[in-house]
């Protein structure tokens, strides 16, 4: 049987089309629901009582966060900063009138594109499949590249042995040693026990909401659908996953 060039090209073309079409149709329609942890903060609820530090105290207790006398040695997981420091591009001379001195809660943003992870030379910090920017303190060599890389100041270096400066030791969580970097871990040890993060549970106003961004029915998605939200320094492209409701 002989076949001319035109027929041959036609047959090959249709076959390729059929193969391409079949693989695109046969692709799984509904991938299993994955997890992407995120936090939504409602500053209006948070600011109801400016003296409240329940979330900070709960975190410090859960994770053995030390309180060092000198500011240069400070170790912070969750803390408060003035609004204009947290959102430097967002304040005008008029918003400052009401908000300038008002504190905003800040902690690790668990970025989708974390610069701290990119610079770590030992893979002591990495992004988990569920979005948590995790640390392996066993592997940290204390080079502080991540401290320099984080545009939010979320990472603290242990300049001193933290143990003598911890008010109440929690035996179920390790302390750190001198020469190790630490930050908020989104309470991954509590998530493993299917518990909400310590700060979320501690907040009397329920100003902190934690949940799965990949689940359209989750409370965080519900809040983000209903109200406008801002993130810290989104122009840097780090894709922070802490949302502040406006």
């Amino acid at each position, binding site marked *: 049987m002989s076949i001319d060039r035109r027929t041959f090209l036609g047959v090959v073309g249709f076959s390729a089309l059929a193969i391409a079409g079949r693989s695109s149709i046969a692709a799984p329609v509904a991938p299993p629901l994955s997890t992407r942890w995120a936090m939504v903060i409602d500053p209006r609820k948070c600011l109801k009582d400016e003296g409240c530090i329940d979330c900070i105290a709960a975190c410090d*207790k859960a994770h*053995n966060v030390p309180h060092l006398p000198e500011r240069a040695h400070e170790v912070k997981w969750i803390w408060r900063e003035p609004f204009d420091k947290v959102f430097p591009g967002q304040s005008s001379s008029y918003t400052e009138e009401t908000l300038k001195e008002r504190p905003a809660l800040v902690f690790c943003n668990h970025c989708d594109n974390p610069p701290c992870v990119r610079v770590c030379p030992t893979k002591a910090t990495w992004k*988990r499949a569920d979005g948590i920017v*995790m640390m*392996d*303190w*066993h592997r940290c060599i204390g080079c502080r590249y991540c401290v320099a890389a984080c545009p939010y100041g979320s990472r603290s270096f242990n300049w001193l042995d933290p143990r003598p400066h911890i008010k*109440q*030791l*929690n*035996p*179920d*969580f*390790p*302390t*750190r*040693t001198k020469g190790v970097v630490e930050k908020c871990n989104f309470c*991954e040890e509590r998530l*493993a026990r299917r518990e909400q993060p310590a700060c979320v549970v501690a907040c009397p106003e329920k100003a902190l909401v934690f949940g799965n961004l990949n689940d359209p029915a989750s409370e965080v998605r519900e809040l983000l659908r209903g109200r406008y939200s801002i993130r810290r320094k989104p122009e840097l492209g780090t894709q922070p996953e802490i949302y502040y409701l406006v």
Partner: protein
Amino acid sequence: MRDRGIIVSGLAGFLVLITFPVWYNLAAGTTSKAPDLKRPEQEKNCVAPVAYMRTSHMELLTTWRDQVVRQNIRTFKAFDGTTYTMDLTQTCMKCHASKADFCDRCHAYAGVTPHCWDCHIDPKLVQGGRG
């Protein structure tokens, strides 16, 4: 042959001196005595057979550490089918409650200083138990 006495006594003195550490330890009774560990009373089974734990607990703990921290795997299925949470302070030290009477005695005897407790907390250190 006139120096026989000096040579023999010199040799004897030398032998005594060179074997002194052996005599000393025998007299003190430390050579043949293995560390006396305080074993848990209520629990009979560990997460692995005793012989394995004795020689390779450090490898098991390193595997646990890597699985928990790096892979988010928290449970361990033991040789007898029991499931344990991989946790030094909450699982190991629930039975081996005293670091001083269990871990330290053997580590001191073997002359090793593992750095687990640089960060992980000996529950006995915390007054009033688990907080």
